[in-house]
């Protein structure tokens, strides 16, 4: 089998030496090494000037030796026997060993080797020379072998002289052939010996008459042919060319077709060899081309030109380094050029080469000189050829006899001679293979010429007939071989698609079943590598990570078919792992293109293959098949299941650390946004499970079981947690897949890189990388892992009540009656072996505008030593914790009126302010201004939540001084059961202008009687579900001036207004809360508490009314102070004296005019109308006054009513010019009610 097309060419100048193992002991590895060492010596230089190379080939079997007279390169010139003595080799088999033991006494080992060697020599009777290499034997033991033929070595390692001995053998053969070459006596002889083939007489038609001229020419032609062969074998191709021409001349006229065919072939092949020597290196790089048109389009034209330029730069040195025909070196050269990628040589390149070659010499004529040195621009070329030929005549004795009128070997003539040869050979059926070899040499010539189109046509025209069914001379194996050779040839010229086609064809021939024969695993072992190499031709790249969204796959149908064929071949050849790999590749890449029946079948096949053995196939590992000739790269099975969008999740809020930078270290930046990025986003902690969220999708129509799914990471020690998934079949609803979390525990600190995942799918171990969203770059997620930190949790004996579904933090629940106090403890526990150097406690709870807070720590003053760089100001309490230590904190819960929290802004359940308007006063808030009020009332709710928040710093500091903070929380749900609550309130004037009654409607929501204690010792009972009104006398607050709230509303911004209002409210709250102490007790339930008045205290509109107004008016009727709302009864026309005392709380002096107005109330709804005309005032109707904080003034009016009815007399103050008008809220006055009747 030829591994390269050039072998067909190099064969004609190569001497065959058969090398075989002999003797009772065999060692194939050692024998292979010997053959390899011999093969390294296959070329020797036998002459310097001209430089002549002698080629030998060390083969283990010879073929077509019956044609060795016709073509000397088929002849076996020498044999080498390789024997191993006992200890160096193993007996061939047990029977041999047994027989050897039994016959040891009779025939010694050395004798056996000697006999085998002699037999080998006798098998090849025409050999010139022979050698016997004996490993492990002593020289004197092998007397039966000629001394000069023995090569005894103690061991293979000690056989240092092996190479020189082989070279010596080659020289010996050379000398014999050279002697034959110089012997041209046949030219002068009258009776020329006629070389004949062994069976020539059988197929020769007629009888030769030896006396005829024709017979003489035939003999002469044949001798010349042989002479030419010798020239070629001894490294003189130029002379061989001349000799072949002479032979053709003679044989043509003698009509000796077979020998003429051989002579034509010899001539053309010699031209080829000369040409190859000349082109040598150029061609080595020329066989690479693009595989597809697409890639070709992307090659800039300049690159092609450059390549052309490069190809011309051939130096003599490089040719000497890489002599033509040296396959390994040629391969090496081609391998060198392949990574440059997509180099391509045009079929018309030779035209440009010709034109660019110097001196305008026709390239086809420059076939190099005798020494085989390449003729480039500077070397001797065709112009010097006549001189050269003359000079070489001394070497060529035959040249004297040959005509000088030889035709120059043009390209056309070379091809013509190849064709002539093929035509002549075709006349002889038994020379079919010889004909085929000639075809391949012709093809090789076209390769050298880069005539790829002509090559393809030539190949098609001449090889087609061998593959035809009518060709019975060749069996299917030979046809397979022909196809393989074609494939190799197409591969060399870069026609990968053609190569794939012929390789596949060769497989079809190879697997052709003749009658009575069944295909064996060995057949598939042969075809598997061939099929594997076709993948490239079909555009299948096994090595590249496959993107499942890739649309540009190439010829999908062909790829599927070829991959399935490869899978079948691998499976039947027994390459289980390779079969699984190919099958998985097929499913991974082409799943959407497979029909359902095929998919089912493939999955069944996969299942069967997996079940066949207990060994788990590793998809990520490279598989080596066929002694390393085939390497199948690892595969990432990303389609089953599709796992995408990895997102690293931060740790749970109670475990998530934050890096607290060391504030002592002065930063060079005053402010930089980069410095702010303290990498707090993705922080994991050693020994703390981290999570990565991924989307998992099953694209199969059936359920998919994924086992051992876990993360693959780099960087630090990591313990992934394996998951098992059962994914439902894909349907229209489940298009987006499901989201799952993959867990793992980092075991050391440092930078962790999450690179991918591994799983067991279909019984296979699969490892995949995460890819970025565009599928191009591998997605490597970096997570910083902090050292192990302390873990603190809060413990509370209150029952557990989860508040949120996805929160698995501990939580507690408490039930209190409104106004009740509930004392309890909470324990802060450090359950790690790392000390906590700072632990700060905070409470998050509903903001209460008035009254005590919901939760309050008892020991607020406890504070540990401050830690640098740690914000401790907000913490209610702070302390340190020892490893596994704990700290108990006491707290109490106060059952606030749930309506008084600032968090719940529901509008529906407002507790309304008193519906009883203070109609008799001017202090009634204006309904229009109510909406803009800063009131904080509208709260409701029964279930309140609060949270204990503990921040703690582990006693670990990094090198750069940073520390790590964690938080833990304990949410508490507090449900407040209403007991005795405030349902409404209103403010009434008190017993003097400086006091007010706060009338509170208290509701008993319980089922039992409640006792109220207020204003020190006053008691009152409230029936169940009843409301009672509790009047509480409260003095006005003189700390807040009358217009303070109005001034607060004039502030520049809403926030400033709010803040000022709040400040005023707090002053008033402090003032009022002292008087609003209403305690309740329910004896039946043995409960007591405080009526929560938070809602009152947060009501700005209420508190506002307790502000001492700017002007207060006190009435005296008939010298008696008017204190209540009781009507003063008078008769019609009866005069009453009303004295008004004007009191000011203003620091500045206030001037104004006081007058009285009368109004009659019609109804609650319709209000009142002005009835000043019914009131008769005698004396001064308007009295001017001047008051300040120190001085009050009185004004007396005498009035009488002229109409019967109920009237109200209210004062009216008109400010003096220059004075500000008084607002309604600035003046407090109780109207005086008169009941006028006719009778008195």
């Amino acid at each position: 089998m030829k591994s390269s097309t050039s072998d067909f060419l190099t064969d004609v100048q190569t001497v065959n030496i058969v090398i075989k193992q002999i003797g009772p002991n065999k060692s194939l590895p050692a024998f292979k090494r010997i053959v390899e060492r011999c093969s390294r010596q296959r070329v020797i230089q036998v002459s310097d000037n001209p430089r002549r190379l002698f080629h030998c080939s060390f083969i283990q079997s010879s073929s077509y030796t019956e044609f060795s007279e016709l073509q000397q390169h088929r002849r076996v010139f020498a044999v080498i026997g390789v024997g191993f003595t006992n200890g160096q080799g193993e007996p061939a088999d047990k029977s041999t060993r047994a027989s050897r033991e039994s016959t040891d006494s009779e025939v010694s080992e050395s004798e056996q080797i000697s006999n085998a060697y002699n037999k080998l020599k006798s098998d090849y009777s025409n050999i010139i020379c022979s050698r016997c290499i004996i490993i492990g034997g002593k020289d004197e033991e092998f007397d039966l072998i000629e001394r000069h033929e023995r090569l005894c070595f103690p061991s293979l390692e000690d056989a240092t002289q092996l190479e020189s001995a082989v070279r010596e053998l080659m020289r010996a053969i050379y000398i014999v052939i050279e002697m034959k070459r110089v012997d041209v006596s046949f030219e002068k002889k009258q009776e020329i010996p006629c070389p004949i083939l062994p069976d020539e007489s059988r197929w020769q038609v007629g009888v030769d008459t030896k006396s005829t001229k024709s017979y003489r020419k035939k003999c002469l032609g044949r001798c010349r042919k042989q002479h030419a062969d010798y020239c070629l074998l001894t490294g003189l191709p130029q002379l061989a060319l001349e000799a072949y021409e002479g032979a053709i001349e003679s044989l043509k006229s003698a009509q000796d077709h077979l020998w003429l065919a051989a002579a034509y072939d010899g001539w053309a092949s010699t031209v080829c060899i000369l040409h190859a020597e000349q082109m040598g290196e150029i061609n080595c790089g020329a066989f690479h081309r693009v595989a597809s048109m697409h890639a070709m389009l992307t090659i800039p034209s300049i690159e092609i030109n450059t390549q052309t330029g490069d190809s011309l730069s051939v130096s003599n040195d490089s040719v000497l380094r890489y002599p033509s025909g040296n396959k390994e070196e040629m391969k090496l050269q081609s391998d060198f050029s392949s990574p440059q990628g997509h180099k391509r040589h045009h079929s018309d390149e030779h035209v440009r080469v010709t034109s660019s070659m110097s001196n305008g010499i026709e390239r086809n004529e420059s076939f190099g000189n005798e020494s085989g040195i390449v003729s480039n621009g500077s070397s001797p070329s065709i112009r010097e050829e006549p001189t050269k030929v003359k000079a070489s005549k001394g070497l060529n004795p035959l040249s004297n006899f040959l005509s000088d009128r030889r035709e120059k070997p043009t390209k056309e003539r070379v091809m013509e001679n190849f064709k002539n040869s093929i035509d002549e050979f075709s006349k002889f059926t038994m020379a079919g293979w010889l004909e085929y070899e000639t075809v391949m040499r012709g093809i090789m010539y076209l390769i050298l010429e880069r005539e790829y189109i002509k090559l393809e046509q030539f190949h098609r025209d001449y090889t087609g007939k061998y593959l035809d069914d009518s060709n019975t001379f060749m069996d299917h194996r030979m046809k397979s071989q022909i196809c393989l050779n074609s494939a190799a040839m197409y591969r060399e010229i870069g026609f990968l698609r053609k190569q794939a086609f012929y390789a596949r064809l060769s497989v079809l021939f190879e697997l052709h079943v003749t009658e009575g024969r069944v295909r064996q695993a060995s057949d598939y072992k042969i075809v598997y590598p061939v099929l594997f190499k076709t993948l490239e031709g079909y555009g299948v790249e096994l090595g590249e990570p496959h993107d499942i969204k890739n649309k540009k796959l190439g010829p999908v149908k062909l790829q599927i078919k070829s991959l399935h064929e490869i899978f079948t071949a691998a499976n039947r050849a027994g390459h289980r792992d390779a079969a699984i790999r190919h099958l998985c590749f097929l499913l991974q890449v082409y799943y959407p293109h497979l029909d359902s029946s095929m998919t089912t079948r493939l999955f069944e096949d996969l299942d069967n293959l997996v079940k066949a053995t207990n060994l788990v196939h590793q998809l990520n590992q490279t598989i080596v098949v066929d002694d390393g000739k085939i390497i199948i790269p690892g595969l990432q099975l990303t389609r089953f299941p599709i796992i995408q969008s990895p997102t690293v999740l931060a740790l749970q809020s109670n475990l998530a650390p934050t890096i607290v930078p060391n504030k002592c270290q002065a930063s060079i930046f005053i402010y930089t946004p980069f410095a702010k990025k303290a990498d707090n986003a993705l922080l994991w902690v050693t020994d703390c499970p981290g999570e990565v969220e991924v989307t998992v999708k099953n694209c199969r129509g059936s359920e998919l079981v994924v086992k051992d799914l876990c993360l693959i990471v780099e960087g630090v020690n990591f313990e992934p947690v394996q998951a098992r998934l059962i994914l439902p079949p894909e349907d229209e609803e489940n298009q987006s897949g499901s989201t799952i979390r993959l867990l793992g525990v980092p075991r050391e600190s440092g930078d962790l890189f999450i690179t991918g995942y591994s799983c067991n799918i279909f019984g296979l171990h699969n490892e995949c990388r995460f890819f970025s969203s565009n599928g191009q770059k591998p997605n490597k997620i970096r997570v910083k892992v902090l050292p192990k930190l302390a873990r603190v949790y809060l413990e509370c004996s209150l029952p557990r009540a989860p508040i949120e579904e996805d929160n698995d933090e501990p939580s507690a629940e408490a039930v209190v009656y409104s106004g009740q106090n509930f004392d309890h403890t909470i324990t802060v526990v450090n359950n790690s072996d790392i000390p906590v150097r700072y632990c700060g406690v905070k409470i998050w709870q509903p903001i209460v505008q008035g009254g005590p807070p919901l939760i309050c720590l008892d020991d607020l003053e406890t504070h540990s030593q401050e830690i640098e760089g740690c914000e401790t100001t907000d913490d209610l309490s702070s302390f340190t914790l020892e490893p596994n230590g704990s700290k108990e904190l006491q707290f109490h819960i106060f059952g606030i009126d749930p309506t008084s929290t600032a968090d719940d802004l529901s509008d529906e359940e407002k507790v309304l302010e008193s519906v009883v308007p203070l109609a008799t006063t001017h202090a009634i808030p204006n309904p229009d201004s109510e909406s803009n009020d800063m009131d904080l009332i509208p709260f409701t709710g029964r279930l309140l939540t609060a949270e204990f928040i503990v921040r703690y710093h582990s006693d670990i500091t990094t090198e750069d001084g940073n520390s790590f903070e964690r938080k833990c929380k304990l949410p508490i749900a507090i449900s407040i059961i209403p007991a005795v609550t405030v349902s409404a309130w209103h403010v009434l004037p008190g017993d003097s202008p400086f006091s007010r009654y706060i009338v509170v409607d208290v509701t008993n929501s319980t089922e039992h009687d409640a006792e109220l204690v207020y204003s020190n010792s006053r008691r009152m009972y409230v029936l169940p579900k009843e409301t009672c009104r509790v009047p509480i006398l409260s003095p006005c607050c003189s700390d807040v001036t009358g217009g303070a709230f109005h001034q607060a509303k004039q502030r520049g911004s809403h926030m400033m207004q709010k803040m000022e209002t709040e400040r005023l409210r707090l002053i008033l709250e402090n003032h009022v809360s002292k008087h609003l102490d209403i305690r309740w007790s329910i004896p039946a339930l043995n409960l007591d508490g405080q009526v929560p008045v938070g809602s009152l205290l947060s009501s700005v509109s209420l508190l506002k009314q307790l502000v001492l107004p700017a002007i207060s008016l006190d009435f005296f009727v008939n010298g008696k102070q008017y204190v209540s709302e009781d009507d003063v009864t008078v008769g019609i026309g009866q005069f009453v004296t009303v004295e008004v005392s004007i009191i000011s709380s203003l620091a500045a002096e206030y001037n104004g005019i006081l007058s009285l107005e009368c109004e009659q109330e019609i109804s609650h709804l319709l209000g009142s109308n002005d009835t000043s005309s019914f009131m008769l005032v005698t004396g001064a109707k308007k009295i001017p006054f001047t008051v300040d904080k120190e001085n009050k003034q009185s004004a007396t009016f005498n009035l009488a009513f002229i109409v019967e009815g109920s009237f109200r007399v209210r004062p009216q103050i008109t400010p003096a010019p220059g004075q500000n008008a008084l607002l309604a809220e600035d003046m407090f006055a109780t109207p005086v009610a008169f009941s006028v009747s006719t009778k008195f």
Partner: protein
Amino acid sequence: MATKEFYFAIIGHCDQPIFEMDFPVGEKKTKESEGTRHLNHYIGHAALDIVDEHALTTSQMYLKMVDKFNEWYVSAFVTASRIRFIMLHTHRADEGIKQFFQEMYETYIKHAMNPFYEIDDVIESPAFEQKATLYGRKYLS
């Protein structure tokens, strides 16, 4: 083979067939014809090497007969954008094939100008198929 058979394929830049059609049109798809279609794929794909080689050495779009395997001849046409038209045929009909290629080239250009069509995508237009059928009837009979 008694009847003239044609297999026409448009090959994209990644060697993928983007349009395929058998002539004469309308014959029932038997298992045998499916097999032939498969063989056609292989022959057509193998011929692409020669087509590419021809395309580099000639400025002509129509490359005449470029390959042959068994009874199948392969003719080719390479567009300016290097889209390759391949015709596998059992009988020589150079002139008809040439005209068919020309017409299909025009049809293809019109189709490629559709802003919704991306080069190298499979052609699924019924109008294109109809045109191909029409020209097939006209020139390949």
